[in-house]
C-alpha cells in the first residue's frame, strides 16, 4: 500500500492518502447505503494531477472514482479498492468575465462558494440547486436542476465549455459546439467518460431582492393548473412547490395502524426586484387561485439562494443528516402526476419526512438540450421527489416502499433523476436511457477504453459489476 501511495505521490502535486489516512466519511456518501474503502485518495491540485492519476490507474489496473461533496446516494463518489479523487481540493474561481457574463471555475468548487465570490459583483448562475454545498462537477455530471429550471433548463445547459480529463488520459476542452459528442456525454454523464476539471459557466445579473409568495393549495389539480399558468406567464424567476402533510390520526395500513395525513401543496413563486420598484403583488398573482395566501417574504436575493441552508442545518443538528437517504426523484409527465400522488401519498406515513421533504417542481421539458438528462416527452413536466431520512434500523422495512415509489413513477411515464438512490437492473438502465443507451455505451468505449471511471453504478462496462447496498 505504502509503495503504491508513494509511487502515485511521485507523479502528482496534490496529497495522496491511504489506509488509516482515509476518512470514514470518504467510505460512504450522503445516502449511507453503500460503503467502500478506496486504496488511495488523491486530492488533486489541478488538471495535471487528474490526468496523471488516470494514467497511473490505467497502468496499475485500478479504477478511479470522483467525489465532490459526497452528496450522492447510489454507488457514486466512493471507491471499492481503487483511487478516489477528492475533487473539493480543486475549488478555485479562476476568472470572472463580467462583460461576457461567464465564470471559469475548478470543478470541485461548491455552488455556495461560487456564489460568495459572485455576490459582490451582483452575478449568479441562472440555475442553482437547493443544496448549495454540492460541487459544480458533481451536479454537472447529473444535470443539475433547481427552482429556476423551468426557465433555464439544467445547470448543464448553462455551461459554455469544460475541460475534461477523459478515461484515456487526454485533457480536452469541449462545449455544446466544440467536441459536442464528448461534451454531451459528460453533462449528465455520471462521470463515465471523463472528469470535469474546469467549467466555464454562464452567469446572469441578479436583482438585489426577491419576493416570495407563500401560496397554499388543498387540491393538487388546482395547484397544477396554477403552476402551469405561472410557468407560462413569464412573471416569475423561481417556482418552488412541495407536498406537505397535515397528520390527521391513525388508520390501518396492512392491519397496523399508522399515522396518515391530509396533504397540502405549498407553492412559492418568487420574483426578483430592485428596491426602488417593488413588485405589483396584484398583477403578479392575477389568475392564481390558492386556497390561502399565507405569507409574503422579501429577502436579499443571495439569502434567497441559500434559503434552505437553515433547514439543512437543522437536519444536521437533529441527527437525520446521518440517516439513510434513499431519495426517489423523478421527472413526471404533467398528465400522470396527480395520479402518482393519489397512489403514493395516502399511505405515506408523514413521519418519514422528519429530516426530509417531498418536492414538486413544475418544469419545462424543452428548456434543456442535455442528451443524457432523460425526461418524458412533452412541454410541461413535473419534478417529483420523495426525499426521506430513514433511521438505519427502519431501512429494511422502508426499502420495498421506496422501490414501489420508484417503479410507480416509471410505470406512469416518469424518468428517474439519477442523483438519488437508483437500483436498476441492466434492462432498466437500458430502458431509462432508451435510444441514448447505445450512444452512451459507445462514448464509454471511446473515451474510457479501459472502463476505469466511476464503476459500480451505471453498467455501461460489462467488466465492472454494479454494487449492491451494504447498509
Amino acid at each position, binding site marked *: 500500500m505504502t509503495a503504491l501511495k508513494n509511487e502515485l505521490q511521485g507523479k502528482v502535486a496534490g496529497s495522496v492518502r491511504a489506509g488509516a489516512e482515509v476518512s470514514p466519511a470518504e467510505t460512504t456518501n450522503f445516502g449511507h447505503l453503500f460503503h467502500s474503502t478506496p486504496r488511495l485518495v488523491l486530492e488533486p491540485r489541478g488538471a495535471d494531477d487528474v490526468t496523471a492519476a488516470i494514467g497511473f490507474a490505467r497502468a496499475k489496473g485500478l479504477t478511479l472514482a470522483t467525489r465532490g461533496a459526497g452528496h450522492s446516494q447510489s454507488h457514486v463518489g466512493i471507491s471499492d479498492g481503487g483511487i478516489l479523487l477528492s475533487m473539493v481540493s480543486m475549488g478555485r474561481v479562476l476568472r470572472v468575465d463580467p462583460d461576457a457574463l461567464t465564470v471559469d471555475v475548478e470543478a470541485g468548487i461548491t455552488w455556495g462558494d461560487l456564489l460568495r465570490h459572485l455576490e459582490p459583483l451582483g452575478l449568479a448562475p441562472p440555475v442553482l440547486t437547493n443544496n448549495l454545498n454540492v460541487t459544480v462537477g458533481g451536479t454537472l455530471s447529473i444535470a443539475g436542476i433547481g427552482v429556476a429550471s423551468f426557465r433555464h433548463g439544467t445547470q448543464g445547459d448553462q455551461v459554455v465549455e469544460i475541460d475534461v480529463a477523459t478515461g484515456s488520459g487526454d485533457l480536452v476542452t469541449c462545449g455544446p459546439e466544440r467536441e459536442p459528442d464528448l461534451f454531451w456525454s459528460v453533462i449528465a454523464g455520471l462521470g463515465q467518460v471523463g472528469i470535469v476539471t474546469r467549467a466555464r459557466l454562464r452567469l446572469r445579473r441578479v436583482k438585489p431582492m426577491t419576493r416570495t409568495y407563500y401560496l397554499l393549495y388543498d387540491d393538487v389539480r388546482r395547484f397544477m393548473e396554477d403552476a402551469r399558468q405561472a410557468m407560462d406567464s413569464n412573471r416569475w424567476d423561481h417556482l418552488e412547490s412541495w407536498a406537505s402533510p397535515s397528520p390527521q390520526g391513525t*388508520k*390501518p*395500513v*396492512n*392491519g397496523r395502524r399508522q399515522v396518515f395525513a391530509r396533504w397540502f401543496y405549498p407553492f412559492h413563486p418568487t420574483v426578483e426586484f430592485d428596491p426602488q420598484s417593488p413588485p405589483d403583488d396584484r398583477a403578479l398573482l392575477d389568475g392564481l387561485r390558492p386556497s390561502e395566501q399565507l405569507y409574503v417574504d422579501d429577502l436579499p436575493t443571495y439569502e434567497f439562494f441559500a434559503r434552505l441552508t437553515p433547514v439543512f442545518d437543522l437536519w444536521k443538528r437533529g441527527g437525520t443528516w446521518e440517516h439513510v437517504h434513499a431519495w426517489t426523484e423523478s421527472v413526471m409527465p404533467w398528465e*400522470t402526476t396527480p*395520479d402518482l400522488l*393519489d*397512489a*403514493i401519498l*395516502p*399511505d405515506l406515513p408523514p413521519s418519514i419526512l422528519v429530516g426530509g421533504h417531498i418536492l414538486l417542481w413544475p418544469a419545462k421539458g424543452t428548456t434543456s438540450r442535455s442528451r443524457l438528462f432523460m425526461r418524458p416527452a412533452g412541454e410541461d413536466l413535473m419534478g417529483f421527489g420523495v426525499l426521506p431520512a430513514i433511521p438505519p434500523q427502519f431501512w429494511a422495512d422502508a426499502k*420495498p*416502499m421506496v*422501490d*414501489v415509489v420508484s*417503479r*410507480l413513477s416509471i*410505470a*406512469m411515464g416518469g424518468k428517474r433523476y439519477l442523483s438519488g438512490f437508483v437500483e436498476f437492473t441492466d434492462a432498466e438502465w437500458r430502458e431509462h436511457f432508451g435510444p441514448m443507451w447505445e450512444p452512451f455505451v459507445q462514448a464509454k468505449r471511446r473515451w474510457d477504453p479501459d472502463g476505469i471511471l466511476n464503476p459500480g453504478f451505471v453498467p455501461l462496462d460489462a467488466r465492472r459489476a454494479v454494487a449492491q447496498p451494504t447498509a
Partner: protein
Amino acid sequence: MRDRIPFGDPSWCAALQSEINASSEYRNAAAKWGVGFNGNLLFGFEADASLPAPLHLLLGLAEGRCTRAEFVPGSKHPEAGFTLRAPFALWREILERRTLAATAILTGKMKVEGDKLTLLKHAGASRALIHCVASVPTEFPPAR
C-alpha cells in the same frame, strides 16, 4: 382463533367477502374503486408445486364494498374488469407479506389484464384488498 378454511372452498369465499365488507381499511382505501369503471377483479392462482390445479377467484368490487366472491371456472370471465395472474407461490409470498403486491405488478411477476394505470392509481385499494385476503384464516394446500 378462527378455524382455518380450506383455500378454494366456497366457505372461504364467503369468509373473504365478510372480511372485505367489515374492513374500514378497505372501505376507505377503495371508496373510488369501481366508480366509473368495472372494478371486478379476477385473481388467477396458477398451478405450481403447492397448487395442483389453477383456481380463479372472481370478486365483485365497487365503492369500497364486495358484492360477490366466488371461485369460477376458466381463466377469463366476462364480468371481470381486471385479471391478476401469478403462480400460487407468489400469491403466498404476497399474502404472507414477504412481497408487496404493487412490487409484483410493477416488476411484471404478476400479470395484469386490464388498465394497469387504473390499478396503479388505486394502489391503496389493492393493498387493502390484499390485506383482507391475507386476514382470512386459510388452510393452504401443502407443498408437494
